[in-house]
Structures are given as C-alpha cells and as structure tokens.
C-alpha cells in the first residue's frame, strides 16, 4: 500500500520519537516541523570507528549465542522546505544517528536498536536482541534458514547524485519555490499553492557475521507543487499536484531538471480548467493511462501482490495476503496479462529510488522478471524467503538465492522483504502517448496519480488521477472530472492491448510505500510506458454535500 498523506496523528511521545526517525512520509503541513542538518560533522559511514562498533556488536551477539547476526548503523539527514503562496511555512533539518542489531538464535529472530552509539550500548543492545530472540523462540514452529549469499568484505556504493542537496544554499531553494508559487498565482482563478522540497541522505554501515562489511550513501530528492483553484462562489474547488515530477534517488540536479516555475503556470491552468470540466458519465471506457498515473497502478496491482511474504500469509494482519498464491499454483502458470507484458524487479536503474549496491541482508540485488511474456514468473525475496521456493528454482535450474529485497526504513526498524523497483518494460513497437489516443474511439485519458485504494489480496482496486480527458474518435475533445476507475486486477491487465515503446518509458515512484508492523515506509520507483486498457468500469465520485 501507499500510506495516506493524512495518516492519523500519532500522539504518544514514543511515537513522535519514532516518527522523527522516519521522515519519509511526514506531511509537509505537520504542526511541528520534523526533519536534517546544515552544518557540522555528521559521522561518515566510512568512519573506521563505526566499523569497529559494528564488529563489537557482532562479537557480543555471537558470544551471547547468536548463530547469525547483522548490524546496521545509520547516520541520516533530511531537509524539508515548504511554502504556501508568498510565504515559507517551514524550514527544518533532521539528523538521526543510531544502530540496530538483528540476531538469529535457534532459528528465531531478535532485533533491538538504540540511538546511543557507544561501545557499551552496542554490546547491551546486541545482548538484548539475543535475549529477545530467545523469548521469541519458545513457540517456534518453522525455524528461519537463510539462503547462502556471497561475502562482501569491503563494499562501497553511492547514489548517482551529482549535487549533494545539503550543499546547496537555502536561499536558492527558497527562491526556487517562491518563484514557482508566484508563477502559479499569476493564473486567474488559481487561489492557493503549496510547494515543497524534500531531501534525504543516509549513510549506512552494514556488517554481518558472515564477514560482510558494506558502506553505502543513499540520496533521495522530491520537489512538489500543489495548486488549488476555487470557484468564485465557493461552490467548488479543484487541485492539481505536480505528478509529472516524481521523487528520485538523485541529488539537487533533479530539482533543477524539474523546472518548477516553468511548469507551475501549466499546473495552475489545469487546476482552473478542472473547475469547469464535465462530470463523467458512468460506464465502461477504454482507458489510456499516462506513465505519471500508471506507476501507482503497477505499484498496487503488480508489485505488492508479488511479495513472497504476503503470498505466504505473513502480512495478513495489515498489508494483507495476495491473489498471486499459493506459489505452487501460480508460478509459471498464472496469466497476469497479454503476452507482450513483461515486468522486471531491479534495484539498479539509474536514479531510481530503490537503487543500492547491497540490500539490508548484505545481498547484491538481482534484476529478475516477475512477469515474463504475460505469465507470473517469480516473487520478490530475501535471504530468509528464497529457500521457500527451492522447488521452483530447482525446476528452473537456477540456484536458490535472494533477489535482494531486504530493507528497513531506519536503524530503529527491523529489515524485512520490501519491493524493489518494479517496472513494466516497454513494448517493441515505437508508440507514444499520442499514438494510443489516436487509436482510441471512445475513451478516457488519465494523467497523474490521484486517489488510490485496493483490497488486501489486491483484486479490487479504485484509482483516480490528476487530469482526465475525454477521447472521441482518436482525439481529445475536452476535460472530465469526478473520474475513478474500478478494476479487478487480472482482468485489468489482460484488457491491456497497447503499450508505448522505449521512447515513452518514464520512472514514477513513491517515498511512502507502506508495509509491515510497525508500518515502515519504503521508497521505490516504477518505470512504465503509456498503456491502453479496453472496457474498464468508470464511476463518478461527485456527490452533493
């Protein structure tokens, strides 16, 4: 799932402390500014004392009886600059330093974490994780067995950020946002505008008892703008979010490339146009979906149901299970979509949010096909999970190994299976957005992600969007509003009959992919091309208050 941007306020201070660790889904409008740091030495992941502390924690875990242990030390920084109209609402920096130790004792996991990065505390926490694993071991039915993974004695990886956002002067960031706001407000009818820059840099040191020692520096950047137009008599209001600018695993260059001020005029014009758009007539339509919209449908209706822990029932209490189950009945058999549909899992696309050198199990991620020629081919896995599919890998003649999908949102959270980038690969024909519209007699074109909701097995979903255009005889004839489509996942993908080619491939994505208890936020990209889907059910969401 993707977290709601309006998840209910946490009220206890422990929750607030925990929320300080994970600023990824923090609302820019939150009452107390949370998140980074502008000056002074933040500990670098390459710092030899961090490696020493990591080894000390591993030794303590081993001496206390752990058969396996790993430790993650993280020095994270985030920065939020958020504005409305001519006003800067907040500038907040956040730094969080801490470590977590995971232990395996008699096949049961334990995990403990602390912000006090001292030689005594790493030992105490490692022992605490072992003691907790022993408490968890008592009702064990199926012990954890880890798939083998190559030892990485000295791994180093860094996001391909050209400009470290934390080195860019604040004044420049403020100026850029206020210029975008000003451009939006020049458009007649655009009454409000919010804009925001969010940056993250995480320096992670990972070590495990197999002998791996890995240092990685991750960058993430998200510029965003939201324009609201209000009817003169307050009878209607409509917003346009800047969904054609997506979050990326890049540096400040992504902000510059987004050309917010230039685009803000158009976003504002579109918000105003929405006020006079025609309410949609309910019915079945051919949908032409823009990549800025489709990525979220892929996220919800392909990426989540192909998580192996969901398929095996491990997430039943929150995120849910999956219709792509049980594995023995769907692997190599389930027809997910047309033959030209191929979906890839990877953590290597340049600038993607899930990109890394090694996952939080210390495994170098693979690029693998989740859907191959329209048929379900593989699940997302970690070292714990890959052995569950040993029969399938034996049948394929490939070794049992993790795809590298282990991730924890912060040092305070235990790692578990999270989706990599999950992307719909381009079609062979060199088609673009306009080609799909030109080929459509009666349909609706949808741009940008909007409202979204899907059931706990990922069958029934409903998606809105930012902009909706009526297509008649191959042409856009006007704007629609109050549009949402409802779908049943397998039918929806099997109703796909056209897709764009390489030229129209775009990376969308989210910082707020939620899963697990306690719920953790994952950041992933979803690459895709425009697609067309025949005969999809469209509802009208407008009601009179």
């Amino acid at each position, binding site marked *: 799932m993707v977290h709601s941007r309006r*998840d209910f306020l*946490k009220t206890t201070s422990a929750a607030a402390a*925990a929320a300080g660790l994970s600023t990824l889904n923090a609302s820019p409008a939150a009452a107390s500014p949370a998140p980074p740091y502008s000056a002074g030495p933040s500990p670098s992941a390459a710092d030899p004392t961090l490696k020493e502390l990591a080894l000390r924690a591993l030794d303590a875990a081993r001496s206390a009886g752990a058969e396996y242990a790993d430790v993650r030390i993280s020095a994270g920084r985030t920065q939020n600059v958020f504005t409305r109209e001519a006003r800067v*609402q907040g500038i907040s*920096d956040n730094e969080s330093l801490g470590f977590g130790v995971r232990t395996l004792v008699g096949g049961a996991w334990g995990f403990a974490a602390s912000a006090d990065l001292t030689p005594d505390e790493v030992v105490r926490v490692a022992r605490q994780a072992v003691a907790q694993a022993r408490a968890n071991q008592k009702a064990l039915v199926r012990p954890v067995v880890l798939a083998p993974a190559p030892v990485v004695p000295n791994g180093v990886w860094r996001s391909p950020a050209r400009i470290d956002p934390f080195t860019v002067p604040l004044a420049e960031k403020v100026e850029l946002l206020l210029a975008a706001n000003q451009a939006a407000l020049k458009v007649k009818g655009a009454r409000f505008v919010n804009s925001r820059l969010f940056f993250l840099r995480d320096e992670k040191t990972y070590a495990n008892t197999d002998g791996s020692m890995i240092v990685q520096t991750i960058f993430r950047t998200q510029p965003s703008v939201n324009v609201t137009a209000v009817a003169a008599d307050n009878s209607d209001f409509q917003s346009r979010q800047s969904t054609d600018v997506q979050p990326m695993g890049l540096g400040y260059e992504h902000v510059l490339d987004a050309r917010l001020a230039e685009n803000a005029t158009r976003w504002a014009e579109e918000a105003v146009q929405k006020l006079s758009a025609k309410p949609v007539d309910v019915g079945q339509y051919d949908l032409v979906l823009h990549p800025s919209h489709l990525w979220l449908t892929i996220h919800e209706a392909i990426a989540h149901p192909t998580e192996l822990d969901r398929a095996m029932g491990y997430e039943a209490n*929150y995120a*849910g299970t999956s219709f792509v189950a049980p594995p023995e009945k769907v692997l190599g058999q389930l027809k997910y979509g047309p033959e030209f549909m191929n979906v890839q899992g990877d953590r290597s696309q340049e600038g993607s949010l899930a990109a890394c050198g090694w996952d939080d199990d210390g495994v170098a991620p693979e690029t693998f096909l989740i859907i191959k020629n329209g048929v379900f081919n593989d699940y997302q896995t970690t070292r714990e999970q890959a052995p569950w599919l040993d029969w399938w890998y034996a049948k394929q003649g490939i070794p049992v190994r993790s795809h590298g999908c282990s991730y924890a949102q912060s040092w305070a959270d235990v790692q578990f299976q999270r989706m990599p980038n999950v992307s719909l690969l381009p079609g062979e024909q060199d088609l673009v957005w306009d080609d799909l519209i030109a080929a459509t007699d009666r349909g609706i074109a949808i741009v940008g992600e909007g409202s979204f909701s899907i059931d706990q097995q990922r069958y029934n979903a*409903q998606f809105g969007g930012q902009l909706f255009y009526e297509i008649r005889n191959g042409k856009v004839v006007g704007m629609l509003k109050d549009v949402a489509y409802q779908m049943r996942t397998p039918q929806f993908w099997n109703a796909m009959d056209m897709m764009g080619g390489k030229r129209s491939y775009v990376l969308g994505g989210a910082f707020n992919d939620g899963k697990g208890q306690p719920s953790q936020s994952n950041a992933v990209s979803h690459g895709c091309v425009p697609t067309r889907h025949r005969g999809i059910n469209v509802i009208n969401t407008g009601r*009179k208050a």
Partner: protein
Amino acid sequence: MSAPRSLLAPARYLSREESESVAKRALGFAKADQTRITIDSGGQGNTRFAVNQISTAGDNYNAVVTILSSFGTRSGSVTTNRLDDEGLRRAVQSAEELARLAPEDPEAMPELGPQRYAESTGWSDATAALDPTGRAEMVRRVTSASLSAGLQSTGYLESEAGATAVANSKGLFAYSRQTGAAMTTTVRTADGTGSGWAGAAANDVSQIDAAALAARALEKARRSAKPVAVEPGRYTVVLEPTAVGNLVQLLAFALNARNADEGRSFFSKQGGGTKIGEKVLDERVTLVSDPASPLAPSSTFTGEGLPVERTTWIENGVVKNLAYDRYWAQKQGTRPVPLGGSLLMSGGDQSIEELIASTERGILVTRFWYIRPVDPRTILYTGLTRDGTFLIENGKVTRAVKNLRFNESPVFMLNNLVGMGQPVRVSASEDGGVSRGVVVPPIKTRDFNFTSLSDAI
C-alpha cells in the same frame, strides 16, 4: 535514565528533570530572539506473529530534540537525536543559521509564555513494564488457540512508553508521560476462504485481553468462510465500533478552520465563511475531543505548548468548533483551538444484537481497510470491508458475504443514522499501531454506498 532497566525492559524515557536539563542546556547555547525546544523520548516494543508463530520483534529507544529558532519573524528548525553538549550546540547553531537565512514570515507568532496544564493521566506502569517475554505470552494466547482450532493466526502487539517536553526562551515548560498499547489479530481458515479480525487499544496494556481477542477472531474466521456475492448498491449497514472509528476519525482531518474559510473544505459555507452553527449531522451525533477521557487519556498540551482542553466539535449535529492555529485565530478574532486529545463520539442504548435484530436486510461490517480520500468537498472516501462481512436477513446474521468497496462520506453516514450502541475504545488505525484514541459506538445507518464487489478474503 529513570526507569529500571533489565536487559529486556523497553521503558526508557527522559524524566521531567532530565528533560528540563536537556532544555536548559540547549537554551543556554541559544542566541536567537526566541527559541523553542521540544523533546520526545521513549521506547517502543513490538512483536509480530504469522502462521501461528512469532515472526519478528523489535525493541528500540530514541530521544529526539527539535530546536526552533527565531530572529524576528524569521525561523528555522533542526532536529537531532544527539543529546550531548556538542550535539545540542551544533543543532542550536544550525537552527539559528537556517533562521537567519529564512525569509520574513508574515504569519509568525511569538512564543507562548508560561502556561498552566492539567496533569495527564495517560501513563500506565503495566505498559511501561511490558517486555518481550510478556509480549510473547500475550501472543501465545492467540497462536495456541488458533493452532488447536486448526486455523492460522497473524497479528501484532505494540507498546510504547515515552515522554514529551516543550520548553522555550520565555520560560514555558510542559512535560507529560504517555503509554500506549495496541493488539490486533487476523485469523484465517486453513483453506483461505475465511478471515476474521479482532483488535483493541488502551493506554494500559493490562486492559487488553488477548484470549478474548483470539476468541472473537477465531469465531469470525469460522463464520466468514465461503462467502457469497451480493449485488453492490445502497445498503442498511450495522457497523461494529472499529468500522465506525475507521470512518468517523476522517471527519477530524477536515476540521481545519482555515481551509474552511479559504473555501476548500466541506466546512466551507457557500458564499464565504465556515459552517460553524450549521447542522451537518444527525442530531444524535456529538463529537468531542478530550485529553482527560478515561478510556483514552492523552497529552494536555500541543507541540508549541498550548494547553489542550476538552473541545466539542459537533453538538447534536451542529458544528460548534473548528480547529484554529494561533495565527488564524488571531486573524479571525477568535481563540486558538488545537485538534488534540482523543476523539469521542456520542452513543445510544442499543446493543449490537438489537441493531441487527431490527434490520430486515443489511450488511454487518467488522472493519474497513485501505481508506483513501476521493473528494474533499464532501469528505468522500473509498475503501473496502474486510475480515468479517455478513448478510443480515430478517433480524439475523445469516451468512458471510464477499467484501465490498464503498465510496462514502462519514457526513452522509452520520446523517443517515438509524441507531447507536455504547461507545468503546477501538484500534482504528489501519496499521495496528498505537495511535490517537478513538472512542465510538456501534451504529446502524441506511443507504451506505457500496460500489463494487471484491474477491479478496
């Protein structure tokens, strides 16, 4: 650290004295015109279980300090979890550096002077003392019942204990300790055709009866097996308290006065202004928030140190208050009204059995899920029923039905009210974590809008 610490005890937090000392040290480094220090410290412990055994668990401790520095109307904020002198000094310097670089803020409000606060009653020693062994014990009450019934239990238990302090350069100091616990379980039949849920939340974990939760979820799992399809459409529904909480809390998000004044809210009045004074819900509905609620006590101050008091949002269906931040309150010539404290809804005297017995044909809903906004003009949301959805025919629950997607607003739902029961505290967050208290009754309402059918179990 104040609490006794065994190897397993999760309850670490900063005492009042420790918080004061951190605040004093930080304020001592400050050179800004005004400085506010917020300190959140605490531990969280959690245990997950799946397929009838513990899967993962975690215990963590953190203490986070936020510095808000202002020079005139320029301000900047820095958060750090490095509480030594060097860490605090650097955080203060960085916040002041950001503040100097920030533009003038026409909406800046001065820091508050010292305030008086009611003592918070949100602390429980039992919750603070809960350790992984205690959590494993509670979990085992569910997993062993499920195992012996041949069912599959999955679930989550979370406990938190921590403290919040706010201090500023004008001498304001506020401190409160809170605990919270939540336990939820989803039990599925071995063939995967049935799923039942139960959950509870409390400040005091000893008020959560794991065995009772297990019994409810097991019973629901069995009864929900092999559901049949019904036509989507408008139904009379009997909503269990959790389902009511899932939707009623959405109203709270919309209570922002400024959005209403600006014409971008359900609470905007056509032609200008807000709907304060207008009747928007059934006259039996009263909605308040109260930090002193015995069922769901919470902090008595906000992040800027403003006291949180009992506030009536809706009284007998009429809008009484909207939430005003200090700037907007001043601009509109009213007093600030923070959106703090637990959310409490009025109830009635009917039992859920009575609500069912008086229903000729309807749907009984255990809970809703993946609830996301569709249209803020009407507070319209979409989402689905989950883990226990049943058909009511001639006053009786007759069979399990497939899950349904709704497109509905708590506004319409609470206008179409038929009857209500006794309010109880529910675990209303989708993720099962400790969150703001929600105390709501079971209700019966008509014309609830289900728009499609789901095959998900």
